[in-house]
């Protein structure tokens, strides 16, 4: 069936190709590459990925400049219609700066850039993005970031937990994130932001395949995989 996934590229994105390769590997269909200055998404868009990297050199705050780019208005509009949106790493930062996800990502509590594989626990396997995981399953996905320290006020954190919107948690918190949060959903459940990189764990040659089920979850949910 017809299926169009899109990967947004900003100046300074560097995981956009990896994301496109992962989407094609799982869905069997090439992803559209979308430039930040484009005002519109393709006419048909079923899944949008906002990739990792250092958009605009992390000027002002990570993700702040990208969040104001023309294409993000179109992404926000699509998200409002229910199109699934995945933001990874810098993409997560962009989505919080856009207001599509609550909270903010601050400098790692330990100051250092953290680049390593980390164990995660699947906190909720009832979501669009996690249906193919087991509840409580432990998976290993790499992180590579300087600003991954998730912050939201206590009321928002309580709400995220109460509504099952914390879909991934760190087993060993690498960055100081509140309540070990590694990935959160928006209230409608169609936007996920996460610091770890599932697109880097798709094939055995990557050292693991724990990221694959995330893409399978979304694509099976859309009946394309």
């Amino acid at each position: 069936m017809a299926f169009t996934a899109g990967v947004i590229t900003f100046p300074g994105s560097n995981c956009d190709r990896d994301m496109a390769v992962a989407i094609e590997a799982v869905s069997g269909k090439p992803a559209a590459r979308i430039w930040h200055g484009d005002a519109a998404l393709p006419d048909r868009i079923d899944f949008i990925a906002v990739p990792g990297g250092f958009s605009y050199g992390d000027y002002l705050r990570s993700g702040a400049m990208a969040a104001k780019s023309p294409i993000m208005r179109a992404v926000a509009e699509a998200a409002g219609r229910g199109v699934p949106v995945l933001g990874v790493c810098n993409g997560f930062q962009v989505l919080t700066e856009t207001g599509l996800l609550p909270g903010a990502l601050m400098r790692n509590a330990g100051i250092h850039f953290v680049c390593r594989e980390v164990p995660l626990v699947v906190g909720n396997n009832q979501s669009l993005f996690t249906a193919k995981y087991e509840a409580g399953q432990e998976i290993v996905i790499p992180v590579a970031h300087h600003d991954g320290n998730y912050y939201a006020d206590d009321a928002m954190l309580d709400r995220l937990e109460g509504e099952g919107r914390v879909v991934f948690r760190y087993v060993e918190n690498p960055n100081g994130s509140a309540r070990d949060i590694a990935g959160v959903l928006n209230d409608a459940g169609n936007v996920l932001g996460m610091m770890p990189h599932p697109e880097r764990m798709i094939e055995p040659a990557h050292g693991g395949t724990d990221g694959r089920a995330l893409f399978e979850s979304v694509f099976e949910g859309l009946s394309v995989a």
Partner: protein
Amino acid sequence: MKVNVHVSLKPGVLDPQGRAIHHALEGLGFAGVNDVRAGRLIELDVADDTSDAALDDMCRKLLANMVIENYRIEKVG
């Protein structure tokens, strides 16, 4: 008109950079530094008829992230 926008982390929000600076000051032998919070100064040169509301809007939409930061607008001439 020259306007300085001071952006600072909200009270209670952990400031890893401030803490690292604090440690570095102590490492240099400066005693009696109780706390350090790091912020950002943004210097704007705007048209003289720029309204306070527009300056507020600039801060809220871009210059500060209202989830974690406060801002203070200072007109300096």
